[in-house]
C-alpha cells in the first residue's frame, strides 16, 4: 500500500513537472499576418541556409505542424532527393520556437508570437 502511494505521488510530481511553465508545449501562431509569416519563413530559411522557403498550406493558428516544401524537381532530376521538412511549433515560457522533427534542431523565431495549443 505504501509502495502504491509512493508511486502515485511520484507520478503526480512528474505530471506537475510536465506542466512547468518552462517546459515546451505544442503551440500555434497567434496570427498569420504577413509580418508574422515573413518572420517565420525568414528564420526557417536561415536555418536551412537558403534565401527563402515555401510553406505548405496550413492554418498555423490551429496546428503546430509547419512544413517547408521543396521546389519541384526539374525535368533532368531523375533521382531527386527533394523532401518536405517538418517542424513543430513549441512554446517554452514566453519563447516561441520551431523544432525540426527529424533532428530536434531548435530554431528561434524572433518576431513570432505563439500560444499553447
Amino acid at each position, binding site marked *: 500500500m505504501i509502495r502504491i502511494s509512493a508511486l502515485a505521488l511520484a507520478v503526480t510530481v512528474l505530471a506537475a513537472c510536465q506542466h512547468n511553465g518552462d517546459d515546451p508545449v505544442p503551440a500555434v501562431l497567434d496570427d498569420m499576418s504577413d509580418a508574422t509569416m515573413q518572420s517565420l519563413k525568414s528564420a526557417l530559411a536561415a536555418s536551412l541556409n*537558403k*534565401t*527563402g522557403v515555401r510553406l505548405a498550406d496550413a492554418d498555423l493558428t490551429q496546428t503546430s505542424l509547419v512544413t517547408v516544401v521543396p521546389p*519541384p524537381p*526539374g525535368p*533532368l532530376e*531523375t*533521382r*531527386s532527393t527533394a523532401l*518536405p521538412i517538418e517542424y513543430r511549433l513549441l512554446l517554452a515560457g514566453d519563447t516561441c520556437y520551431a523544432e525540426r522533427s527529424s533532428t530536434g534542431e531548435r530554431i528561434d523565431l524572433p518576431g513570432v508570437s505563439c500560444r499553447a495549443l
Partner: protein
Amino acid sequence: MGQSRIVRIATTSAAIAASALVSACGGGGGASTPPPPPTQVSPPPPPASQGPTWTQNVFEPASTFKDQCQSPRSGTDIEGNTFPDQAGSLIEEKLWLRSWTEETYLWNDEVVDQDPNGFATAQAYFDVLKTNAVEPSGEDRDDFHFSELTTDFLIRRNSFGNPGYGAEFAIIRGGPPRDIRVAYTEPNSPASTPISGVVPLPRGARILEINGQDIVNGFNTQAQLPALNELLFPSTSGENRTFLVQDVDGTQRSFTITTADITEKPVLTTQVISTGGGTVGYIAFNTFSPFASQEEIILAMRDMQIAGVDDLVLDLRYNGGGLLAVAAQTAYMIAGSSRTAGNDFERFIYNDDAGNLNPIDGTPNDPFPFFNTVLNFGVPLTTNQLSFGQFLPDLDLNRVYILSTGGTCSASEAVINGLRGIDVEVVLIGDTTCGKPYGFVPQDNCGRTYYTIQFQGANNKDFAAYADGFVPNNSSAVFGVKIPGCVVADDFTKALGDPTEALLAAALNYRLNGTCPANTVAPKTLVASKSGPDAAGPALETSAYYLRDVRDLRRPN
C-alpha cells in the same frame, strides 16, 4: 587543401572582426564631439595582383567564391527568391566551379586540375571538371555532366505542362530510314482525343510525315536536325501540325492536330488480371515526378490492395525516374511494413573526402528509409481518401515483376535495387535498364545551373554497382547486373495493360511456369523521353528537352 581553407577563413574572420570593431568605435562617440578632420595621406598602392589566383591542387572553400559574379543579377527569380549575386569576376566563377567540384563531385580524385585561365567561359571550364574514366563496358563513367541557364531551369521546373502533342515517341531507329513509333499517349491530349472516332496517335503508330516533311528519310544533315526535332517535339502550343502515320495494321492515315501544353499523367493505366493462378495487378507508372505522382501511385496501390492481388506487375518501361521519395514509397507499398521496417531504401555514397557528411549541404549523410506515409510536398491532394501523414497501403509481396526498357532509369532502378536490398525478388521482363545509380542536386551560380554527379545510391546491402544497368537473366549481354527475368522486345502492337502485350504476357507466363518466351531478342529502343544507355549528352529529360538540346536523333545501328 585544408591549410589553405583555414587560412582563408581566418583572414575573413579577422577582417569581419576588425570591421565590427571599427564600426562599434565609430558609432559610440555620440553627437557632441565632431569627428576629427580627415588626415591627408597618400592612398595605398594597388595590390600587385587583382583577385584570386589558381594554384594547382590547392583548393579554397567553394563558399569563398560562391555568387561572386562577373555579371551579377539583381532582383528576384520567378520563384520569388532574391538573387544572391555580388560583384565578382569570371575567375571567381571558375574557381567556385573548381572548388565545388572538389568538394561535391563523386569522382573528385579523378578530375585533372587545370588552370581555369585557359578557358574562355565558366561553362567551358565546367565541361572539363569531370572524370574521363571509362567503364569496362566501354561507356564513359560520367555521362551526366552538363549545365543550362538558370532561367531555363526555373521555367522548366515551375511549368505546369510543356508544349507537345501528348504522345511519347520511341526511337527504334534514329537514323534514316527512321523508325519512330508512338509509345503511349497522355489522356485527353491532342494525340489521344479521337478525330471522327479515331485516336490520332495510338500506341505503335509509325510517324511518316509531319507537315509534309519526310520524317523517315529526310533531315540527313546535322544542320537539319533542329528542324526535325521541332516537328517531333514542338516548342510552342497552339500550332496545327498535319501528320501522316502508319498504324500497326499497315494502314496509312493523315490528320491534323493542334499542339497544346501537356501535363504528364504518372500512372497511365491499371489492370487487375484474373489468371489460373490468382489475380495479378498491373500498374503502368511512367514518372516519379511531379509531386502528384505520389498520390497517383498510392491510389493505384490501394486499389490493388482492395482487389487482393496475389502478384504485381509494375510497368516502368518508360519511367526515367524523378522523386526518390516516391520511389521509396512505391517500394514500401510493394514489400510491406515487416520487410521494410528498420531497413534503408537507399544509402548515399559521396566522394571519399565527405566522411559522414553530405558534402552538398553539410548535413549528416542520412539514408532514405522506405517512406510509409503520405508526404506533404505542398501540393493539395485531389481526393479526400488520403491525408498527409496517413500510413500507406501495402501489398506485402516478396516478389514483383518489373517491365523495363533502356528508358527505365534512375529512381526506377532505385526501386529495383532497393527491393533487392531487402530480399524481395525482382523479376525483370524486357530489356536492360539504363544504368544510372547516380544523382545530383542542381546548383545555380551566377545565372547558370550546373549538374555534376554527387552521389551513388546503394541499397540496404550496400550494393550500388549497376552503372551498366540491370539485365534480364537470359540476356546475352556481357555487362550489367543479371537478375531473374526474360529479355523481351517492346510490343508496340498492343496497348499497355493488355495481357497479350509481349512484356506483360511474358511476366504472366513467367509467373506461372518460370520460363521465358523463345526468340525474344530485344532491340535497344531509345525512348525519346528518357535517355538509353547509348544516348549521347545529357540524360533523363523530357523528350522535347532532350532532343531539342542534344540535336541528334542518330544512334549506332
